[in-house]
């Protein structure tokens, strides 16, 4: 591997095994916490397992990315390595697209097919007659087929209040991030920092309003996870999106730190680009959410 231009194959690394143990403990702890919660165990110590796993994961991410950044900055990587990273990030985002595809598919299936069937449409006449003859299809579904088991929400979130504001915030954040990227290409580091700070602030503001919306949904609207399929899909889609915004904001914050440290060059900054691809992806998902979860 001594030839110039050859592909960098790293030597042994301890991070993958630490990552495996960390992932295992995190999920084991999460599973124990959930089972203890559902079984009503009071003095559960499951969360310690979860925390240890989480700390291991955080340490691993810090160390592993640290290695990659160090190798990159010491010039071990080639143009070919750059393409590897690009393919890797591209397919990772594609996998995320498919994950959200499953969640959106669920929403469409329920709205277009199964709720109308429960109310007797299509081949559902006997289902309707035998199971819940009183049930009427509507969306948002406020009265569930078995409304004692799953108490429907009193009201739904007004799309033209917080959700519209959040849409504007996220779209604006995509613009500020693009401006930061342009500034980085022009080697204007002061501008990069300013636009990146603005992007992170917009992201955090989005998360703040999303949390406020959840509080309102739970305490004032009766819109909860157990409010039937409307609440289920609402929180599933917005919740996973929110988790992705959180991750994206952390990525961008790290990019901000790296810009401060003098990382990245005008023509060589894929770490930054990868984070911005991710951010634009969560932005696009939000536009889909705004239309199909809130508006239509």
């Amino acid at each position, binding site marked *: 591997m001594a*030839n110039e*231009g050859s*592909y*960098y*194959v790293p*030597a*042994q690394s*301890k991070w*993958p095994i630490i990552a495996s*143990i960390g*992932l*295992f403990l995190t*999920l*084991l702890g999460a*599973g124990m916490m*959930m*089972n203890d919660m*559902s079984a009503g165990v009071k003095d559960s110590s499951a969360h310690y397992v979860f925390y240890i796993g989480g700390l291991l994961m955080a340490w*691993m*991410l810090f160390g*592993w*990315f640290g290695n990659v950044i160090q190798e*990159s900055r010491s*010039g*071990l*990587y080639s*143009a070919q*390595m*750059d393409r*590897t*990273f690009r*393919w*890797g*990030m591209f*397919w*990772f985002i594609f*996998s*995320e697209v*498919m994950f959200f595809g*499953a*969640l959106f598919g669920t929403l469409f299936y*329920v709205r277009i097919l*199964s709720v109308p069937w429960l109310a007797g449409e299509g081949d559902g006449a006997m289902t309707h007659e035998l*199971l819940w003859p009183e049930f009427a299809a509507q969306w948002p*579904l406020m009265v*569930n*087929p078995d409304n004692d088991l*799953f108490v429907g929400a009193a009201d739904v979130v007004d799309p033209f209040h917080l959700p519209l504001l959040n849409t504007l915030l996220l779209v604006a954040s995509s613009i500020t991030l693009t401006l930061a990227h342009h500034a980085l290409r022009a080697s204007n580091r002061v501008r990069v920092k300013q636009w990146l700070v603005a992007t992170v602030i917009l992201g955090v503001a989005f998360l703040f309003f999303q949390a406020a919306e959840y509080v309102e949904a739970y305490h004032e609207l009766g819109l909860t*996870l*157990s409010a*039937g*399929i409307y*609440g*289920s899909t609402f*929180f599933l889609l917005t919740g996973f999106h929110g988790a992705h915004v959180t991750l994206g904001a952390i*990525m961008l914050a790290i990019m901000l730190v790296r810009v401060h440290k003098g990382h990245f060059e005008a023509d*060589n900054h*894929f*770490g930054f680009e*990868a984070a911005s691809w991710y951010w634009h992806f969560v932005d696009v998902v939000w536009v889909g959410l705004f239309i199909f979860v809130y508006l239509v």
Partner: protein
Amino acid sequence: MSTVTDSVEGTDVKAHEDHHGPAKGLMRWVLTTNHKDIGSMYLWFSFAMFLTGGAMAMIIRAELFQPGLQIVEPAFFNQMTTMHGLIMVFGAVMPAFVGLANWMIPMMIGAPDMAMPRMNNWSFWILPFAAVMLLSTLFMEGGGPNFGWTFYAPLSTDYGPPSTTFFIFSIHMLGISSIMGAINIIATILNLRAPGMTMMKMPLFVWTWLITAYLLIAVMPVLAGAVTMMLMDIHFGTSFFNAGGGGDPVLFQHIFWFFGHPEVYIMILPSFGIVSAIIPAFARKHLFGYTSMVYATASIAFLSFIVWAHHMFTVGIPLIGELFFMYATMLIAVPTGVKVFNWVTTMFRGSMTFEAPMLFSTAFVVLFTIGGFSGLMLSIAPADFQYHDTYFVVAHFHYVLVPGAIFAIFAATYYWLPKWTGHMYDETLAKVHFWMSFIGMNLTFFPMHFVGLAGMPRRIPDYALQFANFNEISSIGGFLFGTTQFLFLFIIIKCIRGGEKAPAKPWEGAEGLEWSVPSPAPYHTFTTPPDVK
């Protein structure tokens, strides 16, 4: 996933001097970034899981040896059928193919290693932890998963044991591993080919894995979505799969099979690649119809996304759906037929010899085709109302998975063992292994067609008296097939420990870059890319 966010345009690549042989001791395997080490670990892990899932199959066959309940409780029988399926799919077959991909793809395309060697290690090391989590459910209160490997709601949500939570998280881990492994394979194939190795010059094993990896990245996240919704229904009061809250248990089946059908092609496409390497080598002819093989593989992958509801004909879907999924499913026979035609035509007037890899490959072509034909029978929606959930289905998918996926893995192992170990394996014993496996597996699964057509339901520990003879034959065949695999283990260990020295190219008609390096393959191959003409 974790090494992908930073890089540098290489203008000043420094010398990197720490690449000699493997490190010593256990830590070599824990810390390694070498594709051959990781490939070996995948293959050994797969074999361990093959024996574990096989032991469960032996319990199933022992219980079904005669009618009545004699050996295990029905509840435990359910756990065995469930875990047998999960372990074989996620623990045995998929890791075996990833192991072969790790070993062979870099050598076949002239790459120094996989594109992301550290992430490669992580993809592997997640697996043992996921397997421990999955197997540990058997020892938990309430037992392990007992709802079938397809874990349909509400069996898995309202009626599943508490250990279902850990089953879900182990599926998440397996999914993370598969997605990272697939990203690595795609990046390797797209980016690390030697100069001159154009896409249409790649060996078919590389092509089929490229398409398989695409399928993995497309559908493993969908499976993650399905188990996440299950988890929410179990612990957080949602009603995705509960009609009382406006959800639908059938929705679970749609999501599951949207993953599940591409998944079955994930388990067969690499086999197509393996057989397409071996048949030309032992027929001493070039593969007939290379280009059509590539297009057929891509067509099968595309069709796999639009046929999922043929698993759900009897669940109650609209007539138009039944028709669409029936005809779409039948279409798959066309590209699959192209492949079988090409393999047979490659053999036609070839100068054939039947060493173990060729025996397994020839059996693959014949027996996989039988499994394909029973699939065609099942695709006929009105007929499926009779076959659904009977042993006919069990016969069908075991015919595509055992002489399909498993035989191809055996064939690949014998074909490339000389390259991996530097020794020839014991050909006589390997032939014994083949014939015992061939007879055992046909004895096991062929009678299942008959009992299935006669109406014996699957996943039931007891059966009506008239099925007794065929079940006895199936069980005897199962025990034969199961015990034979210890012979396979013996042959491999014997080959690793010694034997006739293998030349760089032990098979006269073999093609491909992997035969241009010595046997055993050096720890690092193609650190400078070869020129491919």
